[in-house]
């Protein structure tokens, strides 16, 4: 083998692990997290604490309740990001709904994210956050869909990622009363939570960006009281430069879910 070829091969081997471990990052290490809600309302907008970057993943995830069903939410922002909104209506009480909405910013700057319900008497609460390093053209790795759990103090779901270095986001919902403390699973960081939204829906959103291997991950929380919960989970894939292997988008739309 020529000396130059051997040198290039060695250089490639040295650089490979660095590239494979380049994870998706939460912008500002949490400083872009914010929370919003509306009670007996139609819509509310929350401003990101700082300017968002261009081509970053922005998410709005939380939960809603309405006495005769929530309907289809609309999520938008002042940067004109195109959002994909996934909703899961509880199998136990379809008036409760958990959601994750996401999009890739078309430009940088100040940004207010607005969640709008189709009916005036709706209760919603959610958190927003921003991540860099997500594939802007094809952000979704796997849509893990929604599940309703039995009553438990350790609610969880699972998701099987298809690429290395995926970002996993989970959203949890349950009915408040009694007010219940929510703790993210040990491998997760909390984005936002509301433990008592006017005594209607409680939610918690969490993420992990250390899913270095394409495998099955548990998405879990700990509650102070056993509850019936609803969970929605999505995994996002890194830019081509950061991921060591890539696959087509996984998709699973289950019962009660709408796009």
């Amino acid at each position, binding site marked *: 083998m020529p000396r130059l070829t051997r040198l290039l091969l060695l250089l490639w081997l040295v650089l490979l692990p660095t590239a494979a471990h380049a994870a998706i990052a939460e912008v500002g290490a949490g400083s872009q*997290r*914010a*929370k*919003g*809600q*509306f*009670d*007996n*309302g*139609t*819509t*509310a*907008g*929350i*401003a990101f*604490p700082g300017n968002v970057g261009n081509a970053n993943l922005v998410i709005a995830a939380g939960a809603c*309740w309405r*006495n005769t069903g929530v309907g289809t939410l609309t999520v938008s922002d002042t940067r004109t990001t195109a959002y994909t909104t996934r909703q899961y209506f509880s199998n136990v009480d379809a*008036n409760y709904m958990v959601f994750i909405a996401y999009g890739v910013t078309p430009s940088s700057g*100040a940004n*207010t994210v*607005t969640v709008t319900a189709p*009916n*005036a*008497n709706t209760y919603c609460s959610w958190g927003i956050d921003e991540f860099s390093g997500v594939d802007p053209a094809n952000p979704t790795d796997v849509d893990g869909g929604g599940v309703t759990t039995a009553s438990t103090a350790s609610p969880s779901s699972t998701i099987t990622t298809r690429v290395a270095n995926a970002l996993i986001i989970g959203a949890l919902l349950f*009915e408040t009363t009694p007010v219940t403390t929510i703790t993210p699973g040990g491998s997760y960081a909390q984005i936002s939570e509301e433990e008592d939204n*006017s*005594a*209607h829906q409680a939610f918690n959103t969490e993420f992990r960006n250390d899913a270095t291997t394409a495998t099955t991950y548990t998405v879990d929380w700990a509650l102070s009281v056993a509850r019936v919960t609803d969970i929605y989970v999505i995994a996002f894939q890194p830019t081509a430069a950061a991921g060591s292997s890539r696959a087509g988008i996984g998709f699973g739309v289950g019962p009660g879910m709408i796009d």
Partner: protein
Amino acid sequence: MRALLLLLGLLLMAASASAAPGQIVIPVARYSGKAALPGTPVIGTPTSLRVSLDVSDNTDPTVAWVITVEYSTDGGSTWQPAGNCARNGFAGPVTDKNGQVVTTSGCAFSFPNGANRLRGTLQILGGALSTLGRIEWE
């Protein structure tokens, strides 16, 4: 005497570092068009911001209200959006999950970092609305 003054100073510093509740009152009136809600200083470091409005008269589906909240970090020279909320009129009583009639509407946001002044607007679309409410923080 010096020790007493030092203790008093420390107590004042501790008091100023904590969150002091504050509010902008939306006085009872019949509103139409856009009403400015005056800029109000923020004392301390609040963590939550909440808007509430009486919606007893908000029963006409063609009449909506929008409340926008802005904050300043430089005493009112420049302003940025903190958040907003809106509600379309809804005919008939609204009940909560316990079946109780609800006559207020509102929203809440994370308190904007570094805000030392807040202001807002109440806008009525499609007609007029008799109401009252507040923007409050703590």
